[in-house]
């Protein structure tokens, strides 16, 4: 580094810069989706506790719990030794399974 140069400039991807997101791949989307579901659940659980009989909130709660849980299972499976090359398939599997379980529970609900 020579002394004449200005302050160091180190770039990082900005949330609001569309170009920054073009490099995002499945693993990042899986992580982001799971975290987003977790944060959304905080609000949805609070709404559900206030009035447990609102259908929309029930559907949101079920969907978000399934999404968060199954993406968590994906992360655990990778952590315990499933090869990383399977991570895209596990992501797709978690989404499909979440959708299937949602449909099963929602349309065949027992109450």
């Amino acid at each position, binding site marked *: 580094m020579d002394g004449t140069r*200005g302050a160091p400039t180190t*770039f990082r991807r900005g949330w609001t810069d569309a170009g920054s997101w073009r*490099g995002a791949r499945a693993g990042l989307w899986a992580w982001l989706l799971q975290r987003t579901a977790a944060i959304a659940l905080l609000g949805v659980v609070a709404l559900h506790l206030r009035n447990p009989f609102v259908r929309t909130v029930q559907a949101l709660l079920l969907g978000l719990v399934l999404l968060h849980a199954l993406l968590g299972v994906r992360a655990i499976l*990778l952590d315990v030794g499933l*090869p990383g090359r399977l991570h895209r398939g596990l992501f797709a599997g978690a989404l499909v399974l979440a959708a299937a379980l949602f449909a099963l529970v929602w349309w065949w609900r027992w109450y």
Partner: protein
Amino acid sequence: MAPAAPLEAAPVILRVFRGSPGGPERFDVFRVAVGPHTTVLDALVRLREEAAPDLAFRYACRVGMCGSCAMVVEGRERWACRTRLAAVAAGGPREPTVTVRPLYHLPLVRDLVVGMEPFVARMRAAGAAFVPAPPVAAAAAVAPIPAGSRERRAIDAAVECIGCGACLSACSMVGWNPAFLGPAALNRAWTLEADRRDAGAAGRRPAVLGEAGVLRCHGQAQCTAVCPMELSPADSIRRLRRGAVARLLAGRA
């Protein structure tokens, strides 16, 4: 000298980052003729010869061995010398366009050149040097691990890092926490951890398993997605974690 790309080839708009630390930043726009095999590096070399003699970028081997031409092409870390413009040009209704910018998370030197000091510092912090197991003089200490053995296969899967910095640039966790050792350094630590001839594990673990180590990885595998050598630092980090848990359970932590 290699023949120039055919002039009848379709033009591509090349947007190139220009700037120095503390100075103004901009994207210069060039229209370049592109043949089916013209690489980003070919185009940059031609630009410097014909249109932008002060354009700074780094390269050495030009054949995908050294990693020095790593940069962000169309939002993703790639080797400029192995990336064909025609393959990455964003099409659609507008003219095919390719945007080229320097790697993230490394200090800008000028235009497309970044300093690799933070990359090297992370390697040092992770204890990336081989520490021969005693007795150093014994031939066994440096004898090759047999080809085809389980140990050799585990190491081979992670050992070919060429230090291009693409993984460090792609890792969003490095963006959030600049102290994080990052994928390349931890991948290197794994290759040494897996090597029975290495005796440096104990000295390495405080950093590797510490606050800025494997715990900071969230398994997004962006590093693995961009590694031009097709290594998987994400898998190496998981192996380091599993090893730590196994030692903990065995009471050897």
